[in-house]
């Protein structure tokens, strides 16, 4: 039995410690917003935050976690689509199929955590998620817009 700190609550999980966090979230806890697309840390679809940093959850075994780490998933980013990135994404109609978007938003959110006004180069270096539909330009605009929304006190 492992105890993790997930979206602000302590949760007990009874599953083999080698199970990646991605599958703990999806299959033990029913949090399917975090997506599987490669399983080898390449695509970023499974991005969550651990202590505010972007982490690819397909590479994190449950056994490496304990309740001292704060894990945030897309479901915990806001309760009502009110995070500046969600507001910006909505304003710009960023998602296409949407499958990569939870991971994309979580990568962008982690970037904003450490860098409240990222440049295009910062975005290039930090948002390394694959999007096969090709939403990149709106993702970039969305990050910049989220910065503006936050400055205006939008959220």
């Amino acid at each position, binding site marked *: 039995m492992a105890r993790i700190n*997930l*979206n602000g*609550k302590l*949760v007990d999980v009874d*599953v*083999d410690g080698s*199970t*990646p966090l991605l*599958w703990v*979230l*999806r*299959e*033990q*806890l*029913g*949090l*399917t*917003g*975090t*997506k*599987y*697309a*490669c399983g*080898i840390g*390449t*695509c970023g*679809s499974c991005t969550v935050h651990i202590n505010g940093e972007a982490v690819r959850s397909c590479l994190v075994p449950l056994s490496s976690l304990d309740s001292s780490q704060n894990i945030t*998933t*897309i*479901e915990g980013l*806001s*309760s009502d*689509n009110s995070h500046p990135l*969600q507001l910006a*994404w*909505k304003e710009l*109609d*960023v*998602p*296409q*199929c*949407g*499958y*990569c*978007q939870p991971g994309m*938003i979580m990568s962008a959110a982690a970037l904003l955590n450490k860098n409240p006004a990222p440049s295009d180069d910062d*975005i*290039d*270096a930090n*948002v*390394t*998620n*694959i999007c*096969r*539909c*090709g*939403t*990149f*330009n709106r993702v*970039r605009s969305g990050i910049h817009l989220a910065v503006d929304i936050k400055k205006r006190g939008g959220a």
Partner: protein
Amino acid sequence: MKKDIINVSRRDFLISSGKVGAGFSLGLYLTACSDETGNASKLSNGLTESSVVNQQMAQTPEVNAWVMIQPDDTVIIRIARSEMGQGTLTGLAQLVAEELECDWSKVTTEYPTPGANIKRDNVWGSFSTGGSQGIRGSHDYVRKGGAVARHMLIEAAAEKWGVDITECNAANSIITHVPTARTTTYGQVATAASELFPPEQIELKDPKDWKLIGQPVKRLDTDDKLNGKQIFGADLTMPGMLNASIKACPVFGGKLKSFDDSKVRTMPGVRKVLAVNDDAVAVVADTWWQANTALDKLPVTWDEGTNANVTTASIDKMLDEGLTSSDKVFIGNQNGDVNKALKGAKKIVEATYRYPYQNHATMEPMNATALWTKDKCDVWCPTQNGTAALHAASKAAGLPIEQCDVHKIHLGGGFGRRGSFHDFVEQAVAIAKQLPGTPVKLLWTREEDMAHGHYHPITKCKMVAGLDDQGNLTGLHVRISGQSILAAVNPKWMNNGADTFTFQGMLPEGDHAISYSIPNLLVDHAMRNPPVPPGFWRGVNANQNAIYMESFIDELAHAAGKDPLAFRQKLLQKHPKNLAVLNAVAKKAGWGKPAEKGIYRGLSVFKAFASYVAACAEVSVDDKGQLKIHRIVAATDPGYAVNPQQIEAQVEGSFVFGLSALLYGECTIKGGAVEQSNFHNYPSMLISEMPKVDVIVMPSGGFWGGIGEPTIAVAAPAVLNAIFAATGKRIRQFPLKNVDLRAG
């Protein structure tokens, strides 16, 4: 006019959809799956919720097949085609709502099931979502659906008031009796309207009167994509469901010989290890992770069959032979006498290009969930073609169509992979059949998805052209050698053995007509079909045909000593729409004026899926051979532009798809199997490589062209021509990751 019997087919429909987990109920049933800390147990009452939703639905009057209206004026528009990111759901709803004259802010959508469509005599038409057909293939009947519903709603109000229908009109879901200024709403008369006969004739609006079509309204399906609530096929869960992971013989055409499940049977969660059809093995477990962990450890032996020696080199040899052969050659376009023209030419230019196999690599790997009993089979899956999925399910289930249904779940990308092929459905049903009464979700690993695609076909293309002493193009022979999609996928669509799809963008006329007027032209195809399964891949054959044609036209312009824009313009004199998009990108990009230092431009123009598209790329290549694509100006004339901001999104996305293919897209074959296994060796473009894209949407009216695919055709050649301008290197083999771009 009032119907004397109530709408029987509708009642049947509701009864059929009232079964466990049926389409209507699905939205609520699935989205109720968990709170932010993952209380998955809430799922256990899912079935109760379905029946509640169905009861609510039963009280929602269906004005006609396309439109349901609730008492609070919520309009539910039915969408038969599949949303996979391309925005068709919103565009189709705009088309219906335009004629319906409803309040757009109260519009929602739902998918009818393909089973219901069959029971109701194909009332929703085609469910197929490919070939950029979503809007252009159904604009007429969906608009009529909206117009008919509007007429019935107004008629119901007029009857209620005892006035003549011609004295009433409707706007924004409000019906007004003009002489008395009395009003009512759609919600108040929807039940009465649903009991009327539809008018026999209905007129559609003149495009100049459109209010909603042509507006950049927001997508209807965004909210749940921002917070993880959107349920994709891979996310599906239902009470008692088991999970399966599968491995099919990696060699194409190979079979399953044997497997030894003694070690994995006792692994945690494992319920069953089973053969699937004659070529695959699956592990079924409580969770997918358990199933896949066990599958990884399962010793399997394959009968690799006759393809075990196939390699990229052996395939290339087949294609090389076809470049000059006269065996199995089909003509796609011919005028004049190309041999005579080439003989009399002042200058001959010749080049051979090659385009590789590519995987669709949808972000969401293939998956399907099936529930089989001896008299019913239900499948939940992301599909581009619900009807085809239903046929696949019925065949695999061994049950008549009437006893099966498919419930479409949101797609994490399609790109053609989920349209013609439902191998994943057949497998899921074959597994579920061995576990009667238990729903089983089959999810492929990325590795399985890479190994068992239906790949963008491989071709080579030899082009020979003649120029006269003025540098005019006097004759052109285009010989395509390589794989036919139709021969493998849909031989019924072939034309006396020929695959006309092979000639997309080079045909004499139609949706894929050649852009240029070329005297003495011959385009032919030596069909060579290697044993690697091909498929429709977003953009299909327009992608490589545009590379061939537009790179070679550029070669000819340089051979003739002419400006690539002027050379094209001359050949486009009789093709004003092609010329217009080309001129638009040249103007906006500043063609003819110097670019910033170190930046070079390239052009391309094409017609595909009935739309006219052009691009001008601006690139630089540094002395290490590092390419940077700075900006692309793109123009699209799709005839009518239903939602310009979604067209922009599709155009931008088309560059990601087309440029990912150009930069990285390649599946190589060794031992009869694909060598690439995941995104580390089949990369896709990242945000850091993405150019700025300036989109010009220039609808000229009078026709309906596609949106999701055409632009892909011009993406690669514009960049390739710019690379030539930058480096003097003409690249004829792809992808670019294999090419040294250093100048000289």
